[in-house]
């Protein structure tokens, strides 16, 4: 998410500097390799996709996706609506047959061997897909039953997830009367009632308030800590940045893949933040400049991503301040800022290839 401005042109962030790392950094593996940022040493491939493609008529929803997901990681799919996130997930869950390419999930070839896979995988759909006319407990029971849990196991698991997700007071309630956040919790409870090794979540928190989203993600990390591999799609930057690794999808293609920190680091030194009065004129002035790839107004400040060939950020800010003052803008100032995921998205949208692994 964008760095929140205070809206008054007050003290902006200090010029970007390498964050000091205490202790050891997670990656002992070279950054930029596909295994970078793995949380655990055991690099067992849970998902392997090569050239995964899906066409709907003339439309190519997913185009040659290569993907490796390792056991125990929270792997994010980040992309705008229509980028092919849902289609990719549906192919990996076996609900859609790929037009081209191969996918192996937990060692099973998709979609031929999908039935062997079902009970080991959990899937939470984008749209709430439980039964509104069954109670919370009945929904859980149905899921536990259909996933083949025997009676004792079923009872135990249902009580466990009810306790885990705090659904106790709502067990007799119909999902239709639950709020968005509670619905998501129930959906996650249902998706995990059979203790899947691998969990697919398709925009699980769309339309849910920030508090519930935070809680939801806490649960995800608990599941990951318990050994569940999670593939989650989102278009929230604040969620994407929490993933161990992230695949940015654009127009059905993999635009970038790596740890969130590697993705943002690739744009280091190319972000400036300026302020002036009136801010909208500053915005127009910056957006019109060749060195600026894109500018975003944040209250009274403007956050700008510099084009690849632009002069160093500090130099540019120093040059811009007097220039803008001469154009009649008041109280002009600027700093070099830290890149965020939104900048990454913008850069990728403009067709830029991120130079991952240049810096260590």
């Amino acid at each position, binding site marked *: 998410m964008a760095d929140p401005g205070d809206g008054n042109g007050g003290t902006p962030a200090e010029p970007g500097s390498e964050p000091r790392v205490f202790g050891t950094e997670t990656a002992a593996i070279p950054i930029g390799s596909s295994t970078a940022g793995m949380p655990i040493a055991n690099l067992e491939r849970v998902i392997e996709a090569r050239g995964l493609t899906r066409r709907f008529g003339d439309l190519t929803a997913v185009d040659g996706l290569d993907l490796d997901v390792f056991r125990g990681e929270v792997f994010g799919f980040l992309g705008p609506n229509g980028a092919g996130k849902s289609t990719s997930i549906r192919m990996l869950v*076996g609900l859609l047959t790929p037009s081209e390419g191969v996918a192996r999930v937990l060692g099973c070839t998709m979609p031929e061997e999908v039935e062997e896979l079902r009970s080991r995988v959990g*899937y939470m759909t984008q*749209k*709430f897909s439980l*039964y509104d006319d069954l109670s919370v407990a009945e929904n859980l029971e149905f899921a536990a039953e*259909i*996933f083949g849990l025997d009676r004792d196991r079923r009872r135990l698991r249902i009580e466990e997830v009810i306790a885990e997700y705090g659904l106790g007071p709502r067990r007799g309630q119909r999902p239709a009367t639950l709020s968005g956040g509670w619905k998501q919790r129930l959906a996650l409870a249902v998706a995990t009632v059979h203790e899947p090794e691998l969990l697919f979540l398709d925009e699980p928190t769309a339309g849910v308030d920030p508090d519930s989203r935070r809680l939801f993600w806490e649960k995800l990390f608990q599941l990951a800590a318990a050994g569940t591999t999670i593939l989650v799609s989102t278009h929230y930057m604040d969620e994407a940045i929490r993933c161990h690794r992230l695949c940015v999808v654009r127009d059905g293609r993999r635009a970038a893949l790596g740890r969130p920190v590697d993705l943002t680091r690739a744009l280091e030194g190319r972000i400036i933040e300026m302020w002036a009065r009136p801010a909208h004129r500053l915005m127009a002035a910056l957006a019109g400049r060749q060195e600026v790839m894109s500018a975003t107004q944040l209250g009274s400040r403007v956050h700008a991503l510099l084009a690849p060939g632009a002069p160093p950020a500090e130099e540019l800010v120093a040059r811009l301040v007097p220039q803008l003052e001469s154009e009649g803008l008041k109280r002009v100032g600027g700093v070099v800022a830290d890149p965020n995921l939104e900048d990454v998205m913008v850069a990728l949208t403009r067709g830029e290839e991120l130079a991952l692994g240049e810096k260590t």
Partner: protein
Amino acid sequence: MSEARSEKTRRTLARRLETASRAAFRPVDVVGRSILGARYALVRRRVMSVARKELRQLLRDRLTMGFVVGVPAIQLLLFGYAINQDIRHIPTGLVDHSNTSISRQLVGELQATQTFDVTEQVRSEQEARRLLERGAIRAAVVVPADYARAYYRGRGAEILVLVDAADPILARAVRASANGLMERHNRRQQQFDVGTEGGARRVTRERTSFGAEPELIRPEFLRFEVLNLYNPELRTPVFVVPALLGVILTTTMILMTSLSIVRERERGSFEFLIATPVRRTELMAGKLLPYIGIGLVQIVIVVVTGLVLFEVPIAGSLLDLGVASLVFIAANLTLGLVISSVTTSQFQATQMSFFFFLPSVLLSGFMFPFEAMPKPAQWLGELLPLTHFIRASRGILLRGSSLVDQLPELGAMLLFCAVGFWAATRLFTKQL
């Protein structure tokens, strides 16, 4: 080019808006006419905007448009051809004990009425009754052994006509036709007699009195004795209730199952369901099971109501009826599944169920006698499971026929099931 045009459009629009806003601020007359006018214009605009939106959506739903256009045409065809109370070609069994040229002549006359269609040559009345019970024939004509002798002796032969009166319309048609034939036959005979000996005929009364002179007597005429079997009082409910059983099952079973899967699709739970380990056939079987139970409950309700309120006889075994009903329910359920697999919304599924329901009611023999329909309509009717169930349920309930007698109907329904289930498994995929 297009930019220049859009610029031109923009300017025209702006000019129009300006004139309009000037007009809007025109002073209002005492009666407030222009205010009313403006209000009316707003009302009209809002109504029209809703109407236009509605029409757009309708035109985009191809299936609905198909129904809008197709249903009236099909309905008209079905009604036009199926509604025909003029019963012809009733499958008839002939028991010709006489087997003389004169009895064959009578049979020829019988056939010439076009009401009767002698499809079976039967040896005895008992056998004819069995065939009637089985439903192989709907009427039987018994020519007595002494027909020829009685005819020549002027004693007036009696022809027995057995008719499956479970269907009062059929029974009345048979009676009317028999009476007509009798009248024609006798009148012709009379004319012939008048022509010869002035209203009387010279017949040999007794064969035993060898060498006796033929006497001149006024002969008695031919008589048809029509016997109404199974429903002697010709009560309509007796005929309707067993068929209604099938109609009720058709409506509820097809509609409920056709909605069952498409509802999950619409609500989004389908995606959850197909990502679970449940297999395709397991899912379908699980979907159908409760409806079989519901269908059986409906059967009990209809049979008990028919028994208590309408005094419908239960001539056959209720177990047989139960088995036939189960097969029929299964046939409807598989059809519902097929509909559910090919439609994308509950609305479409409802329409499609109705589309099937309509010919079922019209062509199955529920509303109009099957025998009265033209051949193509009958062929179509044979394709419908309801036709076969109605035959079976009427046979079992009214004529006391057994399940073995109804095997052809049962077989037809089972075939329908098999085809339906095959199609359903083909069309239904555990994918999006």
